């Protein structure tokens, strides 16, 4: 095998400067890759953006045989023929870099996963198989003859229970001196494909390996990039396969061939006891999948997880403590005293400790108001994620989601949006069609309030339960209306739903914790500088007098909505972040400037309002300038139109909340 995988220049450069070895964790979703990652690196993942895209790729380090190695956790994928953008990213990471791969496999589902192992074998790079979830396999009565499997593949196979650290030291030992690349697996394709492969390899000897030749036939752009072949050679090979109908069937024929080859290997290696889940698991599953019990359970999850834990505990108890005790009594007075001494000039001091000071406002909003709400939300989300609840929710909501042009899978970004819309916008890439990604991005930007916002809104409207209820009803109606309109008028493929339901599992505290920490780390890097920047900009505006002028310009818009002039400042903040704007209202509500009606109008408009700068930037990155600007225009118009309508309706009906 000489299919040298050529790393991209910049990656090659960095690895030459410091020859750090790399280990890539590869595999389907839900096989315990991230658990293994945490166990290997022993640290919290450094979540980094993959260059050019924004899918989360965790990187960490592990000591292997006295050498520091980088461990990369790739997004889950089912095959090297990607369907979603997420899978494409995972695949490209593998193709473009060098190093040993660890295929993490769910032992009880080995027959479904071995085809990917064979594909990885064809890449001609060091490969190790981590036969994970052995505990579940044993409980299911599955037996795997590890020695025979290893011999058949030419790949070291290690039995593991990553959650308990079983097999970890054996894996590390193997990785300390990576095995030689495995032999090319015996996969026999239909005759025409074999002939085309030979033809291509004869005409383009640079592409001598079966792996790239195969990917060339499948018109994979990555193949042209990694080892280009002349166009006429490719055309000649394609001609052997046949007309467009045969070419369309090619990926299926290839997948079938891998499947057949894996079946042949597993004969006598894998025996299935055929036990399906424990009775408890099965009963719980039935309750979650049955709409009659599933929807009440959803209600409980929302009430306990979102309302009690995030809203009341995070947004109430913790916020009050941080706001009143930590900041009110210690942090703010401390900085005020410090800056009174070190900065004698009043105009400069306001940059740090004034009404909009970096510490008294920026730091306070970020840590005291936003942090507890977002933090508790991420804990709740990680728990839901790890139990396997979300795919079941997706299954239950699929039909309803079809009405708004999405499929059930979209519940993941939409639910995540209640935590952080920016992160959720990135996660829309798990959706398969462009149309769905556009709809989901728009709905996130328009109608899904993030945790920080919800926290502030719950606080704002806490004294006005009717207003809170109305706010919820209005947001839900707008969500449904916007989705329905887009589903009707946006052209493109209809959504289809296909999702694996992983077994129900008890979440591990360690995993939930490390996920929350890494998400919070990301969030803070994203949010904190913006808050500080906002403080600085407002300070500049104030010192130069520009701030008052801009506020004066916003005042008529705010009055148009029937709000007091002071709310203009909050709206101005809203341009930085919606939650920042809402947090601005918080101060107004405390001083009792606004009535219940005004609070409702203001919260509705701010929830609908333009997304924060971070989300705007991610939208541009994912959807492009055109779509983003068009969406922003529509959102701004909708927010003010709804606000005006709402205010008018309240005035006309004479309702006071």
């Amino acid at each position, binding site marked *: 095998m000489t299919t040298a995988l050529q790393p991209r220049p910049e990656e090659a450069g960095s690895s030459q400067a410091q020859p750090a070895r790399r280990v890539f964790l590869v595999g389907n979703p839900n096989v315990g890759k991230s658990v293994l990652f945490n166990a290997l690196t022993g640290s919290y993942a450094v979540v980094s953006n993959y260059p050019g895209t924004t899918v989360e790729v965790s990187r960490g380090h592990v000591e292997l045989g006295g050498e520091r190695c980088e461990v990369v956790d790739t997004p889950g994928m*089912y*095959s090297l*023929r990607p*369907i979603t953008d997420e899978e494409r990213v995972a695949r490209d990471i593998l193709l473009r870099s060098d190093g040993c791969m660890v295929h993490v496999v*769910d032992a*009880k*589902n080995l*027959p*479904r*996963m071995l*085809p990917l192992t064979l594909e990885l074998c064809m890449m001609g790079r060091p490969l190790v198989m981590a036969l994970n979830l052995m505990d579940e396999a044993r409980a*299911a009565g*599955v037996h795997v003859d590890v020695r025979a499997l290893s011999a058949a593949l030419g790949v070291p196979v290690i039995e593991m229970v990553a959650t308990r650290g079983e097999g970890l030291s054996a894996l590390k030992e193997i990785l300390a001196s990576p095995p030689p690349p495995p032999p090319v697996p015996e996969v026999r394709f*239909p005759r025409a494909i074999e002939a085309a492969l030979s033809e291509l390899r004869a005409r383009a000897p640079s592409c001598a390996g079966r792996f790239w030749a195969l990917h060339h036939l499948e018109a994979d752009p990555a193949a042209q990039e990694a080892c280009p072949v002349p166009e006429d050679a490719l055309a000649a090979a394609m001609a052997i396969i046949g007309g467009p109908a045969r070419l*369309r*069937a090619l*990926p*299926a*024929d290839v*997948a*079938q061939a891998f*499947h057949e080859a894996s079946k042949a290997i597993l004969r006598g290696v894998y025996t*299935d006891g055929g036990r*399906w889940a424990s009775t408890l698991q099965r009963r719980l*599953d039935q309750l979650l*999948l*049955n*709409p009659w019990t599933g929807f009440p359970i959803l209600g409980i999850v929302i009430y306990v997880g979102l309302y009690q834990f995030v809203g009341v505990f995070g947004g109430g108890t913790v916020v009050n403590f941080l706001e009143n005790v930590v900041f009110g009594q210690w942090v703010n007075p401390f900085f005020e005293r410090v800056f009174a001494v070190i900065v004698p000039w009043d105009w400069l001091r306001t940059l740090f400790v004034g009404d909009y000071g970096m510490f008294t406002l920026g730091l306070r909003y970020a840590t005291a108001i936003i942090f507890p709400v977002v933090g508790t939300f991420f804990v709740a989300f990680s728990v839901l994620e790890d139990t396997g609840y979300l*795919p*079941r929710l*997706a*299954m*239950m909501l*699929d*039909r309803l989601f*079809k009405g708004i042009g999405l*499929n*059930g899978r979209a519940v993941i970004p939409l639910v995540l949006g209640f935590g952080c819309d920016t992160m959720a916008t990135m996660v829309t890439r798990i959706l398969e069609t462009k149309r769905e990604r556009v709809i989901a991005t728009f709905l996130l930007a328009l109608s899904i309030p993030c945790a920080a916002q919800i926290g502030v809104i719950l606080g704002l409207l806490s004294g006005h339960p009717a207003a809170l209820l109305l706010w919820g009803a209005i947001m839900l109606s707008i969500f449904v209306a916007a989705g329905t309109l887009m589903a009707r008028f946006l052209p493109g493929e*209809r959504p*289809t*739903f*296909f*999702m*694996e*339901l992983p*077994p129900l599992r008890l979440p591990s505290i360690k995993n939930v914790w490390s996920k929350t920490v890494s998400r919070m780390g990301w969030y803070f890097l994203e949010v904190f500088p913006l808050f500080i920047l906002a403080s600085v900009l407002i300070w500049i505006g104030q010192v130069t007098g520009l701030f008052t002028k801009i506020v004066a310009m916003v005042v008529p818009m705010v009055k148009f909505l029937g709000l007091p002039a002071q709310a203009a400042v909050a709206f101005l903040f809203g341009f930085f972040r919606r939650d920042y704007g809402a947090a601005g209202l918080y101060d107004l509500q405390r001083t009792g400037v606004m009535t219940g009606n005004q609070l409702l109008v203001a919260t509705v408009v701010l929830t609908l309002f333009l997304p924060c700068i971070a989300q705007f930037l991610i939208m541009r990155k994912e959807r492009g300038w055109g779509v983003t600007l068009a969406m922003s225009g529509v959102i701004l118009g909708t927010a003010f139109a709804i606000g005006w309508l709402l205010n008018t309706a309240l005035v006309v009906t004479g309702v006071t909340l």
Partner: protein
Amino acid sequence: MVHGVDIGEVEQELLEDLWQHQMEDRPLPESLPAQVKAYHFAERGWLAQGTLTLTEAGQVLARRAIRRHRLAERLLADLMGTGRERAEEAEEDACVLEHSLIEGLDEKVCAFLGHPRVCPHGHPIPEGDCCKKASQTVDPVVLALSQIRAGEGGTIAYLSTHESGDLQKFLSMGIHPGDPIAVVRQTPSIVFRCGHSQFAVDRHMADQVYVRRDT
């Protein structure tokens, strides 16, 4: 002999081509215009003069031919076929078989198969009188996943997908013809079990998986 009109195999296949062109927007074979002339389609009242548009009489005959062809495909695929490979071979056999499905026999086959609506390639099978009566007297051997009751199962007979993307989705998840499969739920979405994994799909996807039920 069909309804007293003498139609040979070549004519039937030409009628099928014309039907697929007219009803399903498929391209016509290049040789067709010359052939229909040679077989006097216009003179026999099947084609409107000087065009390639089927007359009403022509449509009746073409519809019947298409129905027989696709029923033959289903019969072969459901009874013998396992995978795609076989389904493609079956297409050739189906051409032979369809001409043996004399009037009346096709109704029996249709009932036996449970009045299928699509052929293994996903093309619609025109309804016969028997389907309209919908007298499902015989339990069909092979059913779409969406028609199997929760708690029942069988073996995947074939995947009949309209779009190669859908097919790829099934295959990359490790769902292949020949694998055992069991339905867990039908509402609100279809949940099935394959190996030690559970999957949820919508009706559109479930309509593409054909399962030979356990007997």
